[in-house]
C-alpha cells in the first residue's frame, strides 16, 4: 500500500445530500468494471482532484465523480451499474394513535 491519500465514501454524505433527499452512504453500488457490490461509504474517495472521485475498493476503477461549482453540480456515475438505496417502509410500524 503506497498511496494512502484517499478517504472513504462516508465523506460523500454531505456533498451527495445536497443533491439527494436520501442518505446514499448506506446505498449499495455495483462497480461497472469488476461487478463488486459494496456500500457507497466503502468507496475510496480522492478529494484532491478537481471535485470528488470515488473509486471501487476492489479494482480501483472510478465509480463516481462529483464536481461542485457555486451554482451547479456535475455527478458522473458511468462507472456504477446501479445504486440500490434502502428506503423506509411507507408505514414502518402500525401503532395506536
Amino acid at each position, binding site marked *: 500500500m503506497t498511496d*494512502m491519500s484517499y478517504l*472513504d465514501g462516508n465523506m460523500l454524505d*454531505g456533498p451527495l445530500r445536497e443533491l439527494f433527499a436520501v442518505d446514499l*452512504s448506506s446505498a449499495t453500488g455495483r462497480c461497472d468494471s469488476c461487478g463488486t457490490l459494496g456500500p457507497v461509504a466503502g468507496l475510496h474517495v480522492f478529494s484532491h482532484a478537481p471535485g470528488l472521485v470515488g473509486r471501487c475498493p476492489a479494482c480501483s476503477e472510478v465509480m463516481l465523480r462529483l464536481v461542485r461549482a457555486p451554482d451547479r453540480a456535475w455527478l458522473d456515475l458511468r462507472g456504477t451499474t446501479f445504486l440500490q438505496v434502502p428506503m423506509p417502509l411507507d408505514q414502518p410500524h402500525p401503532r395506536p394513535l
Partner: protein
Amino acid sequence: MAAPTTDRVAGPLTWRVARLVERRTETPTAQTLVLEVPGWPGHVAGQHVDVRLTAPDGYQAARSYSLAGPPDGDRIALTVQKVPDGEVSPYLIDVYGAGDPVEVRGPVGGWFVWRTEETAPVLLVAGGSGVVPLMAMIRARRDAGSRVPFRLIYSVRTPADVIYADELRRRARDDQGLDVAYVYTREAPEGWRGEPHRVGLADVNTHGWPADLEPLCYVCGPTGFVETVADLLVGLGHQTRRVKTERFGPTG
C-alpha cells in the same frame, strides 16, 4: 433523549447557524465544542456534521466532524483534534469564542452508525481521534440502557493523547459489559504490559470478539490504521459487511 426518527429520508440538507455554548479540553491538542443548533433534528451515534467557516472576504472552508454524543435537545458536541497546518481546526480550537456563529449541516451518514436497538456484540477500534464517533456509540449505549456487550480497542501515541480518559475509566468501571483496552504506539504508562507498538493481530485477537459471535465491528482512524485493522478482522474471519470503517485524512 430525542429519538432519531428518520435519518435516511430527511429532506434537503441545509446549513444552520450554530453557536458555541461550552468548550472542554480533552488533551493538549483536542477539545470538545458544545454547539447550540436551533431546530436540530436529532441524530444516530456515528453520524457526522459538516462545519463551514466563512472569512470576511467570502472564502469558505468546510470540514466534516463526527458527533461525539447523542443529541441533547438543540445541543450537539464535536471533538476537534487540532491539525497544526489545518484551516478549520486551528480556528475552532484557538479563535472561535463563546457565542460566535459557525455554520453546520447534518446529521449526515447512515452507514457508520450504531442503533440502540442492535443486539449483536460490538467491537470498536479507534486510532487517535477516531475514538470520537465510537464514544458517541458508547454514550448512546449507556443512555439507552442497552446491555449489548461492547469492547473498545483504543490506539494512542502516549497516555496523554487519550481523549475522554476520565470518562472511559469511569464507564469501563460502571457501564456493565463495556471493556476498554489500550494500545500505545510511542510511550506506554507504567505497569502496562508490553512494549509500545502499532496495533496488530494479537491486540485484535485478544481484545476483540471471535468471528463466530458475528459482532458488529466499527473501525475509525487514519487511513493506514483503518486498512490494517480491517484487514486483520477480515483475516480473522469477520464478514466484510460487518466490518464498518471510517477513515479520516489530515485535512483539518
